[in-house]
């Protein structure tokens, strides 16, 4: 997602959220739509479907100080059953970003 310079985060850094989902594929669209609507720069997203449609998403965004609010908002999406902040680096995401080999 390209962003105008004045929309760049004030505090550069990364935050990673892990979302447990009821329907992983539906959640991808809802989560990305929410990130766009709230103007979060999406750095990486991994969708890991599980049996029966559930699964998890791992989302990396630029940390501009609003991430705790984002976690609350994501957790309230009907397709998301929980959201928690994770420590960086997370192997899945770091690999997507080309930083370290996937575990």
């Amino acid at each position, binding site marked *: 997602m390209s962003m105008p310079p004045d929309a760049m985060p004030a505090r550069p850094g990364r935050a990673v959220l892990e979302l447990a989902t009821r329907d992983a594929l539906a959640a991808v*669209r*809802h989560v990305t*739509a929410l990130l*766009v*609507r709230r103007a979060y720069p999406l750095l990486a997203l991994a969708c890991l479907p599980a049996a029966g449609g559930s699964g998890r998403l791992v989302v990396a965004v630029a940390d501009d100080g609003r991430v705790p*609010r984002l976690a*609350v908002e994501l957790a*309230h*999406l*009907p397709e998301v059953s929980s959201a928690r902040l994770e420590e960086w680096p997370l192997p899945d995401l770091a690999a997507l970003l080309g930083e370290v080999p996937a575990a």
Partner: protein
Amino acid sequence: MPQATGARIIAHCLARQGITTVTGIPGGANLPLFDALAAEPIRIILARHEQGAGFISQGMARVTGRPQVCVATSGPGAMNLLTAIADAKADSVPLVCLTGQVARGLIGTDAFQEVDVYGLTIPIAKHNYLVRRAADLLRVIPEAFRIAASGRPGPVVVDLPRDVQTEEVLFEAWPEPGRPDLPAAPEPAELTKAAALLARAERPLLYCGGGAARSADPEAVAALADALDAPVLTTLMGLGLLPPDHPRNLGMLGMHGAPAANIALASCDLLLAVGARFDDRATGDAKRFCPDAAVVHIDIDPTEHHKNRRARVALAGDAGRTLEALLPLVPARPRPDWAAHIAGLRRDHPSTPPGLDDVKSPYGILTAIAAAVGPEAIVTTDVGQGQMRAAQVWPCRRPGRFLTSGGLGTMGFGLPAAIGAALAEPGTPVVSVVGDGGLLMNVQELATLAELDLPVKVLVLDNGCLGLVRQQQAFFCGGRFPGSTFDARPDFPALAEAFGLAALDLEHARDPRDALQTALAAPGPTLIRLVVDPDAYVYPMVPPGAANNEMILEENHVHAA
């Protein structure tokens, strides 16, 4: 074991939800659903445009507080519904929107009347579904109602491929209707913190929005205000929470709010926000909104907390339950200095709109109609000057009687919402306050109104322009008016008569007051036209980007035009 098509599952589930009326327009992709609806004890209201259908359903939902249903076909039908969906999201109105979709095998092929309804509605709906198997409807339909009504209400979209509607399913039993989740209550520890802050405050103020109007007991609000010796301000969506003459009610805040209310905000030291979301129209410049106040924010939607204003204490819960829990924790204490300050603001900054006694002025006709139709009447407004004038002077005595497009600000809302309100409460007088610009945005629903013969009085404040746009151009754009003036002026009474409505043109009435009373007393729908000066502005006005206490007031304003 029951066996049914997808369409029959939907229609029967709606009936089991207690739905007795749906609005909409049929088309190729939802004909099976219309057939199934017709087989249930459900009335189908045929709107003349899907946006009209959405707003009729919104009118019903806003009056009843329960989810209502609108139906559109695929492609353009669903596209026409989008504004009503976004409007319902902005104002937290529970809707279930059923859209037809091309058959599953055609999805993604750019088929006739195919658009990605699911993708289009993700950002504007509370939730949405694309149903891929008829069997899923047994879960999805009750869930859609549960989600629409739970917590902070909102619209849920269910996109229904045509072949899902015709697919036969064998199943164990009909599902239980979807019911709203129990309202949330805040954590006791947070309540204690909030109560301590309130108890210490010397200049507290209650700021109540649509969430308070929807779920709080007005007596509990008044009791808390009494305990704190605090004034109560409401947003546009909170109108009616307290009657206008209630001693604690200081009026509406915001861009066209009461001067005393807007000034009081600047000096409070504690702001208790109840079911309000710090919308920019209410706060003005957010950085200068209650600059010295600690904020206690009650909202059922925790994603509203800290969004536009950082709260010292954020209470995630239903406004009614939270206030009831908070009230016994807050000691009653007079605050004589603050009370004297508020009394002084009331005295020095009264709201005195011009022409209140003149039935041929915009404020005068609103007060005359309000007096004639009585306190139980429902008023709907369009968006713009008429909306703000009605908000300023319509005597809202209880919540749920003043229906307006607050968040999205949708012109064209007023007429169809009034039809919905009249359907929801048969026999209750309904007044729709619209401008000539707004009426023309959904004028086709005059046909629906005539067909239903509902007691809706449509007041057209006809100034030949987009009045609030023109006002902003006059105030802030150097008095240049590009694109806001209508050169062609429809004959609105003749137009109404062409649709089959009675009409009154006050311009030609020999005794306007008497003619107005006669029109209001007549059964059925009537259009009433009042000519309004395009240069009659709405005061006060907080300029965009200014603080609320930097209002433009009529008495000290040199007109830009």
